[in-house]
């Protein structure tokens, strides 16, 4: 029924419809190559789109940074609080306090928390099931840092890549998932 609108028409509509409010500045609408690809499901499903997706995954992969102090596993208690908090980053937030991870918005983690979302898989018994090997640890760090390194259009935010969480926060979340003493691995 409908023809693809031109980029010019589309951008003009966004321009007259959106305004900056607090920390939610208008520059947020400038897409990077990952966002541009993932906004176009029809192209994404074409052979050319699939090739592009591999390319995008690669560039996300290249940008992952290991923890600067070599420490992967932080404090699971703090990790739980970060996983619970979905605060931060919206026009209603000041931007002065560190953001939460909002992990429970999309994942089951500690099964004592029953208000969990289902956009992502359950992470209950995460380490207990996968083990605590070096491979599991680096995979999990990378995933939290930049899920688009494994799946170009994963709906999980790129917490390290886009500076949504700092290194300490990601280490603490790693503790929640991969410390054998964490309640997640009971």
């Amino acid at each position, binding site marked *: *029924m*409908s*023809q*693809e*609108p031109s980029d010019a*028409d*589309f951008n003009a*509509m*966004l321009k*007259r*419809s*959106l*305004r*900056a*409010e607090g920390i*939610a*500045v*208008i520059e*947020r*609408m*400038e*897409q990077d190559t*990952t*966002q541009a690809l*993932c*906004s*176009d*499901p029809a192209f994404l499903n074409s052979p050319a789109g699939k090739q592009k997706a591999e390319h995008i995954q690669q560039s996300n992969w290249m940008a992952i940074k290991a923890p600067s102090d070599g420490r992967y596993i932080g404090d699971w208690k703090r990790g739980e609080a970060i996983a*619970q*908090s*979905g*605060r931060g*980053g*919206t*026009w*209603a937030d000041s931007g002065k306090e560190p953001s*939460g991870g*909002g992990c*429970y*918005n*999309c994942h089951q983690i500690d099964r004592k928390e*029953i*208000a*969990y*979302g*289902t*956009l992502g898989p359950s992470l209950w018994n995460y380490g207990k099931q996968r083990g605590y090997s070096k491979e599991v640890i680096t995979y999990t760090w990378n995933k939290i840092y930049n899920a*688009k390194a494994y799946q170009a259009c994963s*709906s999980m*935010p*790129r917490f390290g890549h*886009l*500076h*949504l969480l700092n290194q300490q926060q990601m280490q603490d979340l790693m503790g929640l998932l991969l410390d054998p003493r964490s309640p997640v691995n009971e």
Partner: protein
Amino acid sequence: MTAHTLRLRLGLGLRLGLGLGLRLGLGLRLGLGLRLGLGLCLGLWLCASAGWVFAQSSTEDITQYRDMLSDSNPAELYIAAGEDKWNTPAGPKKTNLKYCDLGLGAGKLEGAAAQLPRYFKDTDRVQDLESRLMTCLSQLQGISEQSIIDAPFGEGPKKDLNEIVAYVVSRSKGAIIKVSTQHPKEQAIYALGKKAFYTQAGPYDFSCASCHSQDAKRIRLQELPNLTSPAGAAQAWGSWPAYRVSNGEFWTMQHRLNDCLRQQHWPYPVYGSDLTIALSMFMAVNANEGLYQAPGLKR
């Protein structure tokens, strides 16, 4: 009815409504084991202000709540106030809204909301209910559209508009959703809305599709309609505007979209802007042939 008795009736009505809500809220907390979501709310993008978090499945609880209320949705109060506003002369021009054309002819309300958004010749654009009513308020009553756009949600001229919206949609309850895509501008804005729905941007890479393109998913306990499917779109589009139990407020679709764009971590959408109308057009057309059940009752 004079403005004085109107105010009186409205004030009484709202107080009654508050009492009802409170009573039911307490009953529910005891009866269904809800917990006050102060702690939990910190974890929700949605919970700007602390509210209730349902301890079981939200659908289950809201169904029980609906049963308890049976036919009396607190939105009734808004409908009654809106009916008065429709018929009572107001604004600098001291006229009522009986000549407002919502697409089916001046003053024709039956089923009109179930066919919006649509193209209007006089404004030469596609309009949703809220933006069309702003046109009527400005043209007929002389109330400035900007004053409505600038008002905080639920206050001043936006509160007045909410009530009129409630009244107008109540005259479409039970109608079949029938949104036209005949006019080239209707086709164009549908296509823009579809593109907007899938557009990812901002620090969380979110689009509407990130949360609303799969069946049976949730954020925390809030169920996410799949707005790309006819059934999901009809269920969602056909039940807005709605009275929200969690905060005791009446929200139109403009307010719903505003709050979703907030948690999408995007910049702020201008009230009644083309982006919001385009997104509504996308949802409404996907919902075509579904049942229009607004005003709804929500979490």
